[in-house]
């Protein structure tokens, strides 16, 4: 067992442990802070795979922007435990159903395709530049230029929609309830 393998197994265990903490810690602020640890471990996995640019983007965009947005909203709302609904019943059957189904599908794929079990090729076989910013840009801005444009338009639309939503003021606390009465 060489060093890469040891690092890989440690990273995998850390990813699963922090993922479990994100999913099952009761308070949202704890989930958000464990999410940062999870993203840093993901970034380390990308470095191990050789995708350096993706690792940097993972830290910058996910841990730097999205989780900060989550933390900001959680602290802005300042919820008490009663509003969080911490004492709710857990439908364990649905979890078992979902994980069992995906597990069986995964097992079938695993048995059906032994190519999946071959070791990943060394980086030198892939011309040595895989995962760098230069090679990524050459593919992304030439071959996939339309997906780049669509991403830009999508971000513009998101900015416009968030502005509209921020300007829209719901009437009052009871507005929704009177609406329900009107419908029914």
């Amino acid at each position, binding site marked *: 067992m060489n060093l890469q393998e040891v690092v890989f197994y440690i990273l995998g265990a850390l990813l699963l442990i922090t993922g479990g903490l994100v999913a099952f810690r009761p308070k949202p602020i704890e989930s958000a802070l464990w999410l940062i640890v999870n993203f840093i471990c993901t970034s380390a996995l990308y470095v191990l795979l050789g995708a350096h640019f993706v690792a940097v983007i993972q830290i910058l965009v996910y841990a730097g922007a999205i989780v900060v947005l989550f933390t900001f909203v959680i602290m802005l709302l300042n919820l008490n435990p009663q509003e969080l609904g911490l004492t709710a019943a857990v439908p364990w059957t649905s979890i078992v159903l979902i994980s069992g189904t995906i597990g069986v599908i995964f097992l079938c794929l695993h048995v059906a395709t032994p190519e999946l079990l071959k*070791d*990943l090729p060394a980086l030198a076989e892939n011309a040595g530049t*895989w995962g760098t910013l230069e090679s990524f840009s050459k593919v992304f801005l030439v071959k996939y230029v339309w997906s780049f444009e669509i991403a830009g338009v999508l971000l513009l639309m*998101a900015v416009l929609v968030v502005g509209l*939503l921020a300007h829209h*003021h719901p009437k009052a606390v009871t507005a929704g309830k009177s609406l329900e009465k009107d419908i029914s």
Partner: protein
Amino acid sequence: MSFSIAHILFICFGLFVLGASGFLIRKNAISMLICLELMLNAVNISLVAFGRMHGNESGHALYFLVITVAACETAIALAIILNLFRLRRSIRLDDATVLKG
């Protein structure tokens, strides 16, 4: 490299199932969004790993598109949650029944 794509896919599978089960059992909207991010992240790992297996950058292009969609979705969903909180003083999705028929 002494680990195969199946090892990485197993980690992706574990993370995705953790996110999905968290999404199902959580009651407040922000925690459900965080679990959604966990699922998207699991898919991203598998995209980059398959790109590594085939030795091209198409997986990176898809990764870029996925994080764009994730950022847009997070911003819009958090704005909707803030409006919901102003309307109902609560972010539990059991209370958000305006669209119930």
